């Protein structure tokens, strides 16, 4: 708790002193040619001492906006500064931080991340003993405030949403956080940490700590143990370490497991250019990215279902399966939600593919518009609405309220694509065990994708649904051993039944084969 508190307070404190040297360097790097802006900065910012980002940030953003307004009025388009005001504030802040936090990065790291990790583990590890015998540990989930949408859940909700808003839209407030992980970043990539590095590091830390919780909670269930290990490995190694090390080796930053269209900016002009300019490795990444989406992904889904990606490899899935596990029961099972889900998730897929086609058209024809639509503005809309708001703010922020797979279920275009393959051409299914279902509803309650598993199980039908990510929890919580995730022959995968196994053999045939 202390760690979390310190972490929360950090954005608001700290000393910043912008020296002329820092200012000059930034002006040079950003290619700022607006005298107006520089004058304003010299006057209001440079050489002064600021207590906390709250006092520094407005000065910079105002200067920038005023400058740009001035230049637009005077039609001095070359002088307009296209860097976002908040990014610029973050850059200035990063260069000018001074005082206790900057000088004691290690100590501050301990006070935030260190204490956070220790605190969480102190809370989690005693469960080895406290939870007692191996088995399903869902006692009290609907009695406890935190997991039953009580005030703690709402507090977590507010915290997560604010965190993502800072991350995406007010990165200058994350500057103090970046100092904490500078040593780690410098060790890995040789560069000081930006706010995305903080996010990456935090993501891995949170996943690791919560994976410990998963290991303890599901220690009777080997499938969960193996799956949790896999998803943790891919996050730490593929999403975090490899890209950072690639930067150190002068290669482009790339997460090899992040497949298009989840990786929606893969075909954006800047990325293609950067890849094409990076020689062999760039070309390799380009080919890999295309093969991953067009060949590897569907083939793997054919053999194993979309679970190989969504709950074994994917970073979003990884966070959902670790941090989000305590909230999985909140995904709505109503028919209405299913309808919303199908419209939304396929809508996003169409949007992503449409945008990419525009992008590629613009790239090859070098025109900025397609059918009168500006490619750039479509991209910006997607990045803002889908990339930032849907995937980040709503996707994770809403964990405690709408369950842990909001993004994966309603928004992820890759999930929609994988879902088509899984539904129509895959060996994966959740087998229903004959007539053993007692309709208790544990499976449906704990399905994070909002699938009404029981509706199928009680009819003796296998579950073949495009949205299933194969987390295996329905099978784990079933008290009667009714559900099993498996890959088998396509024939008989979908088995509509009306009369269940156990009844009159003739009747079953009569009714089911009618």
């Amino acid at each position, binding site marked *: 708790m202390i760690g979390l508190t310190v972490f929360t307070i950090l954005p608001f404190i700290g000393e910043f002193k912008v020296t002329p040297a820092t200012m000059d360097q930034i002006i040079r790097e950003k290619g700022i040619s607006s005298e107006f802006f520089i004058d304003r900065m010299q006057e209001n910012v440079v050489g002064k001492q600021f207590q906390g980002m709250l006092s520094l940030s407005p000065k910079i953003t105002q200067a920038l906006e005023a400058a740009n307004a001035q230049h637009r009025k005077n039609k001095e388009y070359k002088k307009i500064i296209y860097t976002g005001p908040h990014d610029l504030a973050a850059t200035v802040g990063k260069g000018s931080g001074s005082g206790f936090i900057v000088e004691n990065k290690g100590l501050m790291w301990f006070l935030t991340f260190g204490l956070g990790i220790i605190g969480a583990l102190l809370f989690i590890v005693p469960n080895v003993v406290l939870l*007692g*015998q*191996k*088995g*399903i540990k*869902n*006692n*009290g*989930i*609907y*009695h*406890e405030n935190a997991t039953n949408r009580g005030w703690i859940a709402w507090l977590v909700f507010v915290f997560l949403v604010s965190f993502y808003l800072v991350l995406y839209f007010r990165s200058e407030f994350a500057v103090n956080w970046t100092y904490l992980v500078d040593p780690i970043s410098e060790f890995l990539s040789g560069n000081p940490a930006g706010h995305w590095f903080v996010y990456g590091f935090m993501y891995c830390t949170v996943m690791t700590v919560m994976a410990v919780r998963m290991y303890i909670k599901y220690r009777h*269930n*080997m*499938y969960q143990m*193996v799956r949790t290990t896999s998803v943790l490995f891919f996050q730490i190694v593929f999403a975090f370490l490899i890209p950072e090390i690639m930067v150190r080796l002068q290669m482009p930053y790339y997460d090899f497991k992040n497949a298009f269209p989840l990786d929606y900016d893969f075909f954006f002009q800047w990325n293609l250019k950067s890849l094409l300019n990076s020689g062999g490795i760039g070309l390799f990444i380009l080919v890999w990215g295309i093969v991953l989406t067009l060949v590897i992904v569907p083939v793997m889904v054919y053999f194993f279902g979309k679970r190989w990606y969504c709950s074994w490899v994917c970073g979003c899935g990884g966070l959902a399966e670790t941090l989000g596990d305590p909230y999985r029961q909140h995904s709505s099972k*109503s*028919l209405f939600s299913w309808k919303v889900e199908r419209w939304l998730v396929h809508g996003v897929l169409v949007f992503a593919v449409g945008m990419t086609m525009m992008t590629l058209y613009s790239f090859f024809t070098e025109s900025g518009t397609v059918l009168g639509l500006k490619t750039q503005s479509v991209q910006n809309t997607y990045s803002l609405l889908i990339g930032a708001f849907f995937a980040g703010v709503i996707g994770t922020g809403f964990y405690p309220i709408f369950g842990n797979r909001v993004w994966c279920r309603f928004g992820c275009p890759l999930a929609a694509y994988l879902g088509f393959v899984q539904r129509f051409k895959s060996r994966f299914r959740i*087998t229903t*065990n*004959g*007539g*053993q279902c*007692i*309709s*208790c*509803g*544990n499976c*449906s*309650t704990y399905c994070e994708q909002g699938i009404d598993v*029981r*509706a199928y199980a*009680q009819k003796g039908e296998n579950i073949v649904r495009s949205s299933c990510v194969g987390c*295996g929890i329905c*099978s*784990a*919580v079933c*008290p*009667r*051993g009714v559900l*099993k*995730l*498996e890959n*088998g*022959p396509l*024939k*008989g995968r979908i*088995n509509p039944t*009306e*009369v*269940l*196994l*156990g*009844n*009159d*053999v*003739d*009747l079953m045939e*009569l*009714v089911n084969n009618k």
Partner: protein
Amino acid sequence: MEHIVIIGNGISGITAARHIRKLSDKKITIISAESDYFFSRTALMYVYMGHMKFEHTQPYENWFWKKNRLNLVHGYVTQVDTANKKLILNGSEEMGYDKLIIATGSKPNKFGWPGQDLKGVQGLYSKQDLELLETNAPNNEVCKRAVIVGGGLIGIELAEMLRSRDIPVTFLVREDSFWNGVLPEGESQMINEHILEHHIDLKLGTNLKEIIADENGWAKAVVTDKGEMIPCTVVGLTAGVAPNIDFLKGSGIELGKGVKVNNFLETNITDVYAIGDCAEQHESIGNRRPVEAVWYTGRMMGETLAQTICGNKTAYNPGHWFNSAKFLDIEYQTYGWVFSERAKKDHEQHFHWRHPKEKICVTIAFHRDTKLFLGINTFGIRMRHEILDRWLTEKRSVSYVLEYLKDANFDPEFYAEYEQAIISCYNSHYGTNIRPKKKSWKRIFSNV
């Protein structure tokens, strides 16, 4: 339009209603005094334990009933007038019917114990029982100790529920080992151990003598037949259930333990049927009991009767016996017949294997002379219903079953496998040389 009235909205009544609707356009009315909508009785325990909310136990959303023109009536049938084909609801309202289905389920047994109607004494069967338990035993401050009387499936579920709120539990079991009227010795013994692991004060071979009241009419202690007095706040009576048919007395419908039915689920009165827990077969089917209070049989009777009512007269003809339960953390499945030592016939021989450390075991029953496979009980291992059902139909031998045991495994992926250990144990016991065959999808999905 023919009016079908169903008394009871449990699994039997609802299954019948759903199937009649699928097959016909008849007017269907379902009457219940217990709950507005169908819920899964077997899941009530999870509501108390906080795994689910009550609404999660309802398999269909509330709009389902209206959409399918299943008319739900909240009320208690006080009288059935078969001569005039009408019901009396709540003592006064009348409702006519063309065909009547009685699916009223069970009620907890009470055996005339002194003090059995005191406050704080309850069974665990209905939604109301759950609500009562929430009042009687909300936590271990209010309920200092609970005594459970009756060592069956509901008893152990109630114990698990109370333990989930850290309420001390004493569990009185009449038999000298848990549920050994049904389970063979090795299995019953393993469950005894598991009950103790969960810090439940298990008292075997102990009967309830009386429940003592405090000055306010609340239970304050129980006295056992061994003369021991156990102070407690709540007493759970879980000594089995009996058909809930008291309202039918004097209706002319033939009653025994339950509502007497033939194998078409017809009572002695034309157009009156009974299904589920409350029905009693004139003649038992195979090894089955005349009254079967099991979820699955209730559902099957509903499936069957719907055919008859919609013009395809079908006898109730359940296939091979199967059942399942969960004892605290241990899942139990059974296919075919494995009887306890008390109930088994001479020719029934058992092979028992138990894991040296984990709470996992298997018992296979087979014919002593012919080696015909009769049934299997598994604890902590899931089995594939279709495969075992097929083997029973095909009258396979015990060695065949062992040889292909891997095909029948239904545990989640990456689980440890025990077939090798089980088969080695069998081989060393009976001097055979059976080798397990690799799992084959082809075999598993043939005949499907």
